[in-house]
């Protein structure tokens, strides 16, 4: 069975590690996990190889998560890649904007591994 290739986008290296650890603690079987520090780095990673799941912060320097998602959806090979926003933003308008552009859901920081699993598992199930 193919294990999912995952991209984690967050300007905090600590948060990237926590998200990856939470995914594993939640019992999700992962393949390669790639990390990017902002939307621009993430777009380069996407152009180098396809991902089965992307988790992205919204509030990042250089290119934020909303702009990353917008540009991601313009790449033919990534049009349907599931993206979940992981954010401290309680701002409904920012979350709605992300969902309108094509995010599959969002997780608000702080989060537990169970909350990550609840949001991510259905997306990985569809892949199988």
């Amino acid at each position: 069975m193919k294990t999912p290739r995952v991209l984690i986008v967050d300007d905090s290296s600590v948060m990237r590690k926590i998200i990856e650890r939470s995914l594993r603690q939640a019992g999700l079987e992962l393949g390669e996990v790639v990390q990017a520090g902002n939307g621009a780095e993430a777009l380069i990673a996407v152009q180098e190889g396809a991902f089965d799941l992307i988790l992205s912060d919204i509030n990042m320097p250089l290119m934020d998560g909303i702009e990353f998602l917008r540009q991601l959806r313009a790449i033919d090979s990534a049009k349907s890649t599931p993206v979940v926003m992981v954010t401290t933003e309680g701002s409904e308008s920012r979350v709605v904007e992300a969902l309108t552009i094509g995010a599959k859901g969002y997780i608000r920081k702080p989060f537990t591994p169970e909350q990550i699993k609840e949001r991510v598992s259905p997306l990985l199930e569809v892949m199988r």
Partner: protein
Amino acid sequence: MNPALASNIQTQVRPDATWATLLDCATKEVFQIMLQTDLTTVSVPEGDVATGDTTAMVGLAGALCGVLSIRCSSRTAESIAGRMLGSVGAVDPSEVPDAIAEICNMVAGNFKAKITRLADHCLLSVPTVIRGEDYEMVTIADGEQIVVCLGHEGERIWVCLAVHS
């Protein structure tokens, strides 16, 4: 202009008596969820001021303008980073500012999410961290300050919301 900023011009939100409790609660929740640690509320004698050689700050703009800061000792900051990362033993020093910045970011986000009129009308900046042995935090803009002091492993963590008038 971001709609969250544009729409707040008519809806400035001012602090009220509940905000100290909400700030206390928002901070404790972040530590409980991300560090599996229970903070205790510390009663601060009048005249005590925030101390510590590590400060993380997040700016707020929109319906509420100001700065939320978290100040603690470097030892506490290292402990926070270690717990966040689930590390056993020493933490990579380069990850300490990143960890304390993320904690500050999450506290700010969690706090504003608790205030209905604020949640959708206030944006957070990318966090900044200051480290050093002798500095004083001075808020230039006049306005209210809400300060909460919390205990963590026998040391103090100061959480301050400075609201610009």
